[in-house]
């Protein structure tokens, strides 16, 4: 098994604090994820909420449901997972587990969301796709920007905060938009496949919200389980050979090291309040209490 660690860097921003998680396999970075913890006064943010309105006329026997996009700020105050990068689904899942580990350990709310870039069709060969290439941007967003696409940087990933006043305040009826847009709305970018799978693995699902810039899906859910058993908890470390009671296969465990900002991914045997590892880590931490969490990872693809 490779030597995996997840390193956390903590910083403060105007609107809260931010954790940057980096996953390293044998000292090579395999992916990263940013966790944004809202402060007391989080900045204004908007999403489209996908809803349904009912239009019925019993007089002529017609009843139709209409899907709508309505501007909302529902997710303000929720922890955001951002800037997801991962070379494979295992790395993505590991980063999510690491987020789960620290959030649980620090008693942060377990509800999180992640805005995913939207699916785009037409990207020139050899060029990176931009959120501004999304059909959603072309059919909706650009109409609410004074200078259209040129109002934004090419690298824009979300609606600029200083332009929030320009967003449409009335519901947008999806049936009035093109069939092509309806077909791709809320679909994630093709290069996010690893994250899509990892998020599903963690039961985070695309729900009722879309990014206002490109209509990309917003995955959300309870990353940290309410059950204490699924959270990181301190256990006394022992060397595997001494405490292993039987021939059970090891569990996959994330364990926090001494300075608290690094997690190690290792096989281990749980035994009540004790945990047994093989190798150097056990020898260096023998008898000490370290926070651990058993995890389950998807196949590496």
């Amino acid at each position: 098994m490779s030597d995996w660690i997840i390193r956390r860097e903590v910083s403060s921003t105007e609107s809260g604090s931010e954790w940057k998680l980096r996953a390293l396999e044998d000292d090579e970075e395999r992916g990263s994820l940013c966790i944004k913890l809202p402060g007391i006064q989080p900045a204004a943010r908007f999403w489209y909420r996908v809803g349904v309105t009912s239009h019925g006329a019993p007089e002529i026997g017609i009843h139709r449901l209409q899907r709508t996009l309505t501007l909302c700020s529902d997710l303000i105050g929720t922890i955001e997972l951002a800037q997801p990068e991962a070379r494979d689904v295992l790395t993505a899942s590991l980063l999510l587990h690491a987020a789960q580990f620290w959030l649980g350990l620090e008693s942060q709310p377990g509800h999180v969301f992640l805005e995913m870039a939207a699916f785009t069709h037409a990207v020139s060969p050899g060029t990176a796709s931009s959120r501004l290439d999304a059909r959603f941007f072309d059919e909706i967003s650009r109409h609410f920007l004074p200078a259209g696409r040129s109002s934004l940087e090419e690298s824009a990933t979300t609606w600029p905060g200083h332009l929030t006043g320009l967003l449409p305040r009335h519901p947008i009826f999806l049936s009035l938009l093109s069939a092509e847009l309806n077909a791709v709305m809320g679909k994630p970018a093709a290069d996010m496949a690893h994250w899509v799978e990892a998020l599903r693995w963690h039961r985070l699902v695309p729900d009722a919200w879309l990014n206002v810039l490109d209509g990309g899906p917003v995955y959300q859910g309870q990353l940290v389980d309410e059950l204490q058993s699924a959270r990181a908890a301190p256990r006394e470390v022992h060397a595997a050979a001494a405490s292993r009671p039987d021939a059970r296969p090891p569990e996959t465990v994330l364990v926090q090291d001494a300075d608290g900002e690094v997690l190690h991914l290792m096989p281990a045997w749980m035994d009540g309040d004790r945990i047994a590892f093989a190798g150097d880590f056990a020898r260096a931490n023998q008898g000490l209490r370290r926070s651990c969490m058993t995890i389950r990872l998807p196949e590496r693809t």
Partner: protein
Amino acid sequence: MTHAQDVDLGRFLVRPALATDIDALERFAIASAYGITTLPSDRAALLERLSRSARAFDNRDAATGDEIYLFVLEDVRGHRVIGTSGIAASAGLGRHFFSYRNEYVVHSGAEAGGHMRAHTLNLCQDLTGATLLTSFYIEPEYEGTPAAQLLSRARLLFIAQFPERFAERIAAESPGLADERGHCPFWEAVGKKFFGMDYPEVERLAVGRTKPFIGQLLPQSPLYVALLPQEAQWAIGQLHPVADLPFSILEDEGFDSDTYVDIFDAGPISDARVSTLRTVRSSRLARASIAAPGSKDSSEAPRTWHLAATARLDHFRAVIAQVPEAAIEVGVEIAQRVGASPHALLRIAPLMDTEAGAGREHV
């Protein structure tokens, strides 16, 4: 364009439609199969409208607001009915009359560094209760003559004469863009999504945009025009070519056609205050001369073409005639043409120089 001097204008007469005009109305309804929803190509429905109209003209008591008045244009030389027009006293019978109002929502913010003016369509009932001009049709060979003005504007003389029967606000629907097969780009892009039926079918059900189900099915929140398909955007406020003539007459009257559009085809709905219309403002009462029949009008004042109408509800007639400018009396010949007795009051208004037929000829 045909000028007044090119046509024998004395041959045209507008009068209330009678049951005996049913064949002509049916002919017009078929000829105008697209565009005039108030002229159904259904003989029974037409007879019902004629009956309602006759009752409205006969009712000398206070009007209730649900009256319709149908007029016909007759070529008296051949005793031939060549056109029709109408008035509905109160759009939606004072209950519901739906339309879209063009609005512009300005989105801005102190830090936005600009602002966005978003064109929206808002479902509204602003025009409920307004008087509606309806059912205009004139046979094609008369379109370029002042007879078209007579047919359209005679209604305004009627309204000016009997204001208590009508609202102060007045409107007129004009058909929007659609092809011969009933394919309507705005309907396909908007209305059909909420009604789930084809345009002809909803026209049959909606009965002049008055049915409450319209408000139940169409969204109550504004529609952002920029988000609609291009073809539908282009159709908003666009006029079907068949309505060019009556629309231009209304424009010349001073109707505003920028505020409202039809909920189904997005054709323009023109509206105005009655008191601001040119015909109403320029109309005046004149008394029929008592000069002996056949005698000439002795006034030396230059004469111009006018519309002249009787002031009687039960005997409304309107013609085109030459009247001395600022006259308070009109010639006995005019009185005879409209069937007015000596001393009877006539309401007159100058014929306009319009695309629909110039009338500014001094004689």
